């Protein structure tokens, strides 16, 4: 028989054991939040090795490989027709893709009667194109309809009052009536539902792209509408090259097209005056009509073959466009006003009638993490390379093409495929925020805007350095020079944390030498490395630099004659003016001075050329640091330079002007050796400062492929990178039930929820802190507006004043954005504002909000129940004894 003490121990021991097990269970049980927490990386990049496999333009093969998980991610947007073939548990990253519009030939064509030479007819097409049908049916709902060229990006919000004032919407009857009046006044006849001019049917030539599904499908709809209007339609089928040749390269008076459907990439930016200036004003060579000062497509004078009213309007457009391009205004409000005026001219002239923006998905397998979607660059970008992973030590991704051009910092990196791959090997200085395109530091450099003025009143110190294009030498600026802006750039973080992939330190010598190269290739025609194409790319930017000064071993101050109302924007612009190389690849200028020198020697000896046009002219290679021929030449030159202990003359020149020792002969020899070792090891000269090294680049195999290995010299700590730069933009939408009526004595109350979907996810959650804006229009006139921030769980309540609006039907336009994600997709509804004596219906409650709740840990419950039972049993046993 057990003693009382023993019985107590027998009772307590099981309890203690169970409690211990329970504690262990709690320790290993995952947190009960909806998101699985991940450990923050301590070093980038996360994935040691990436295989990049090219599918040579065969998207079908690439998508099949993705669906079968032979690759983790396919770096091209999945065509709409293929979306249904992707398993639903895959991750979709929606990105602003293409801006679609219908282009009309506004000239009096030589081969017939062109109804679109009349502005009223073109304008009427705004009421026929049916943007809702385009987005919902052609794009499958993956898009944003738009009347202007601004769709989704921040400048969209400034166009809303203009758009509403014009009241453009689908109205076939109105369009038909307008066209009838215009054409009959011009002498055309409408007989039995068909249009005739001088006895012949009016034939409209519609260029139909046969190599793109969206445009081909929409063309069918548009042709049906044109035939319904009474025109005879002749299709002109063709691919991209035919479109470039026929529509953009020919005199619109003689070219056989009157309607063409366009799609433009690269149409998202934070400040995007360039979109309107390019699409509306002929001065930038992208309009099939002339003004008083500029030619159609930059080459054809069509003033005698277009209506004088069009010439007059386009001349005004040119003036406004030049003011915008030259920042010839004094504040942001003026800039916005000019932009609105230009867009209004574009709407009135209707040479381009916009349809909307397509939001097409990139797709990744369910296991993929770390893809950072960027509305400008897409998901495959410099930041994604830092963080993307599928949990394996080797990540395989697919691309459409490895490259469609050369890899050199002067006139290479001109195609998006090259830039996507090369982005792994260089680290950009500036990053455009993923969800809104705003320029931001990303840990490589910092800047301070010293001055930013619309007037050139910033004194430039006499010992600042400038370039003299008449003798090809750098010199001091001297007295009496003024600039509009001044920026100090500090390269210390880059120099501290990064090295080139061959182990060379990044020093002021590298930075100054690339400035030297930039001026030689683009500004000084007598230079042996001058390239006419580089001149067209960089000379105007370089000519804006009034002077620069090396402040110390890590900082440079820049003075330019450019100005912008946003200091951050001018900082980026000024930096870009002094360091323009790299063309379209952010960070593409970062090569060590050794490679720049070797490339310069090869170009000066006419063995290769910087640009494709120069290469074509000379019958030599388009210089590329991944082309084995060119790499061998670079290697050979480096060895010669090393033997002679050569310090480039550009560095010597800069040393004299800066009074700094930038490079010693021994350092030069060492740097040459490091570059030589790299080339001999990896077979290419793509020596950047990015997170990866290009360790293999194979175009002789099929499939072509490249291998990227983590760069051991990339030591930028995660803490140095601003978190927003690695943040995936969240697509936010409004969920609310619009009120149907209100009174003029009580503000119109709108309640709802802001829902957000993270990139790669399909779950919508409430978003706090989103900016909800509503504008009230009556008969196209803006009567009131208000904004509010969403609260917890994304809920918001917005009040709009309704005084002076009684007996009116108000149109309310609402949109939402966050500080980190701007993809404006306005939602509209109409509400009747009754006088206060009329009983109003109560507003409905908002639609249900989605909130995130922690899932219940059933394991814990079961364990607790078991413990309780055991305790009770043990106590009962003890007490019985």
């Amino acid at each position, binding site marked *: 028989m057990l003693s009382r003490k023993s019985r107590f121990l027998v009772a307590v021991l099981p309890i203690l054991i169970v409690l211990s097990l329970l504690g262990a269970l709690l320790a290993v049980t995952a947190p009960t939040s909806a998101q699985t927490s991940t450990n923050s990386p301590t070093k980038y990049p996360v994935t040691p090795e990436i*295989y990049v496999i090219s599918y*040579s333009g*065969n998207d079908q*093969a690439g998508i099949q*490989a993705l669906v*079968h998980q032979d690759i983790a991610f396919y770096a091209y947007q999945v065509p709409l027709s293929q979306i249904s073939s992707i398993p639903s548990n895959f991750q979709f990253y929606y990105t602003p893709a293409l801006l679609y519009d219908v282009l009309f030939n506004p000239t009096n064509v030589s081969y017939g009667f062109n109804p679109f030479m009349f502005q009223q007819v073109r304008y009427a097409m705004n009421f026929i194109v049916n943007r809702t049908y385009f987005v919902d049916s052609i794009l499958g709902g993956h898009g944003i309809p738009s009347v202007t060229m601004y769709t989704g990006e921040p400048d969209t919000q400034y166009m809303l009052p203009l758009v509403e004032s014009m009241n453009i919407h689908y109205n076939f009857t109105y369009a038909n009536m307008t066209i009838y009046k215009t054409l009959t006044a011009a002498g055309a006849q409408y007989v039995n539902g068909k249009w005739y001019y001088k006895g012949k049917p009016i034939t409209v030539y519609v260029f139909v792209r046969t190599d793109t599904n969206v445009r081909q499908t929409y063309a069918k709809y548009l042709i049906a509408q044109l035939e319904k209007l009474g025109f005879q339609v002749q299709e002109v089928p063709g691919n991209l*090259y035919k479109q*470039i*040749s*026929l529509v*953009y*390269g020919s005199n619109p008076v003689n070219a056989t097209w009157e309607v063409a459907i366009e799609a433009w990439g*690269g149409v998202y930016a934070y400040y*995007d005056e*360039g979109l309107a*200036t*390019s699409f509306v004003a002929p*001065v*930038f*060579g*992208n309009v099939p009509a002339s003004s008083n000062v500029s030619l159609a*497509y*930059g080459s054809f004078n069509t003033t005698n073959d277009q209506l004088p009213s069009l010439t007059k309007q386009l001349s005004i457009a040119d003036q406004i466009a*030049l003011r915008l*391009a*030259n*920042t010839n205004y004094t504040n942001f409000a003026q800039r916005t006003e000019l932009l609105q005026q230009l867009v209004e001219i574009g709407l009135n002239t209707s040479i381009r009638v916009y349809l909307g923006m397509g939001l097409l998905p990139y797709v990744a397998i369910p296991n993929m993490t770390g893809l950072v979607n960027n509305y400008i660059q897409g998901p495959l970008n410099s930041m994604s390379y830092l963080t993307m992973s599928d949990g394996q030590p080797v990540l*395989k991704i697919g691309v459409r093409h490895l490259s*469609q*051009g*050369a890899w050199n910092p002067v006139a290479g990196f001109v195609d998006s495929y090259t830039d996507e791959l090369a982005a792994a090997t260089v680290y950009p200085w500036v990053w455009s925020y993923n969800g809104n395109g705003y320029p931001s530091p990303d840990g490589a450099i910092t800047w301070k805007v010293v001055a930013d003025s619309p007037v050139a009143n910033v004194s430039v110190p006499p010992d600042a350095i400038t370039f003299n294009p008449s003798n090809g030498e750098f010199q001091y600026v001297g007295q009496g020079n003024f600039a509009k802006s001044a920026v100090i750039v500090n390269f210390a973080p880059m120099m501290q944390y990064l090295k080139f992939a061959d182990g060379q330190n990044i020093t002021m010598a590298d930075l100054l030498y690339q400035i030297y190269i930039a001026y030689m290739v683009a500004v000084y025609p007598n230079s042996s490395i001058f390239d*006419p194409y580089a*001149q*067209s790319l960089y000379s*105007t*930017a370089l000519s804006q630099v009034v002077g620069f000064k090396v402040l110390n071993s890590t900082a440079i101050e820049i003075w330019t004659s*450019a*100005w*912008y109302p946003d200091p951050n924007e*001018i900082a980026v612009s000024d930096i870009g*003016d002094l360091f*323009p190389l790299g063309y*379209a690849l952010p960070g593409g200028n970062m090569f060590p001075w050794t490679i720049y020198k070797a490339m310069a020697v090869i170009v000066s000896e006419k063995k290769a050329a910087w640009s494709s*046009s*120069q*290469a*074509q*002219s000379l*019958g030599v*290679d*388009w210089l590329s640091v*991944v082309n*084995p*021929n*060119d790499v061998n030449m670079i290697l050979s030159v480096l060895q010669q330079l090393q033997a002679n202990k050569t310090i480039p003359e550009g560095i010597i020149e800069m040393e004299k002007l800066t009074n700094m020792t930038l490079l010693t002969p021994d350092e030069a020899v060492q740097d040459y050796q490091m570059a030589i070792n790299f080339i001999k090891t990896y077979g290419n000269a793509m020596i950047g400062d990015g997170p990866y090294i290009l360790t293999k680049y194979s175009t*002789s*195999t*099929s*499939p072509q492929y490249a*291998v990227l290995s983590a760069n051991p010299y990339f030591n930028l700590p995660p803490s140095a990178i601003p978190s927003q730069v690695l943040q995936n933009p969240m697509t936010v939408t409004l969920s609310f039930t619009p009120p149907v009526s209100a009174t003029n004595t009580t503000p119109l109350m709108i309640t709802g929820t802001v829902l957000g979907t993270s990139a790669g996810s399909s779950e919508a959650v409430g978003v706090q802190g989103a900016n909800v804006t509503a504008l009230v229009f009556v008969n196209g006139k803006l009567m009131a507006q208000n904004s509010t921030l969403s609260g917890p769980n994304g809920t918001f309540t917005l009040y709009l004043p309704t005084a002076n609006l009684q007996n009116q039907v108000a149109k309310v336009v609402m949109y939402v954005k966050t500080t980190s994600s701007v993809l404006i997709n306005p939602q509209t509804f109409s509400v009747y504002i009754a006088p206060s004596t009329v009983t109003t219906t109560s507003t409905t409650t908002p639609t249900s909000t989605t909130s995130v709740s922690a899932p219940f840990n059933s394991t814990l419950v079961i364990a607790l129940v078991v413990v309780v039972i055991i305790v009770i049993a043990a106590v009962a046993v003890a007490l019985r004894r």
Partner: protein
Amino acid sequence: MGYLSFAIKKVISYILALFGTMAILFVGTYPIYTTVIVNSANFVAAETLRTLQQRSHTPLTPEQIQQIHDQIVNQIIASYGLNKPFAVQFFYFLKNLLTFNLGYGYTNAPITSNTGSYAVADIIASYLPNTILLFTTGTIIVIILGLVIGLLAARYAGSVWDRLVPVVAVVHSSFPTWWIGFLLIAALAYGVHLFPPGGIVSVPPPKNPVLYALDVLYHMALPLISIIIVGVGGFAYVVRSLVLSTLSEDFVIALRARAIPERIVLFKHVMRASSPSIVTQVLLALTTSITGSLTTEVVFQWPGMGLLTWEAIIQNDVPVMLGVLYVTTLVLLAGLLLGELIYGVLDPRIRVGED
């Protein structure tokens, strides 16, 4: 001198045919591609200006903008030599053909050789061996199998075997190779994962040369099977028909009457008599195999002459297109010339007739 003069006449006529073909091609394509290049220059200039605006807030006057535009356009035109007179360009084109200088491909197209060269000769030299590896191998297999099957069908004329050959020939020949390719990929690549869906090697390719060769053969399997399926029936039918027509000749009856074994009649006498036609067919098949098949290579992503042609068409790379046409015309004419010369050796009536 009979055969020598016959041969010389043939060589001269084929050389003239070659240059005549290329001259017609040049003249026929010149207006088109010059128009395309000149017209595309405007677009390139406009896009460059749009990119410049997005990158920098650099003030520009209308004159500066027009200057940039004109500079880009003129540069593009000059780079292709289109600012020279047509006669000068035509002269250099023919001169280059004589020296096998096929020029350079368009540098804005992604087509380069294995070494990254844009020289058309280098590009073709990179792609041609892959076509020979696949299609010539496949053609040889088709020829051997076709010969055996055709001979057997002719030997056992009237049997079930003989009746099967024409049916198979017609049915299989009517299958497009690319369609067979898709079926094979769907079934054997994505269905049961027995073979890779395309390409020439795995990623990464094996470093060991033997394993590399095996990897290439592994990737060749599906396209080879599709070539054989489509080609063997037709060739067997041709051989069968040729042999059958020879078997009906009087000398065969005479040989059989002398109780010479059927095997010797068939392989020694009948084949000898049929050989000129068969050899011609074989030579034609071998020479055309070098040109590859555009659809097959595109379906299987096999980097040969067919895929090169496809990419050149898509990218509007006219020098590469003309270079490929020149090489394929040259090969075809060389094959025909060789066939005629061999025919002249095998059948004396040919060169006597020429005399």
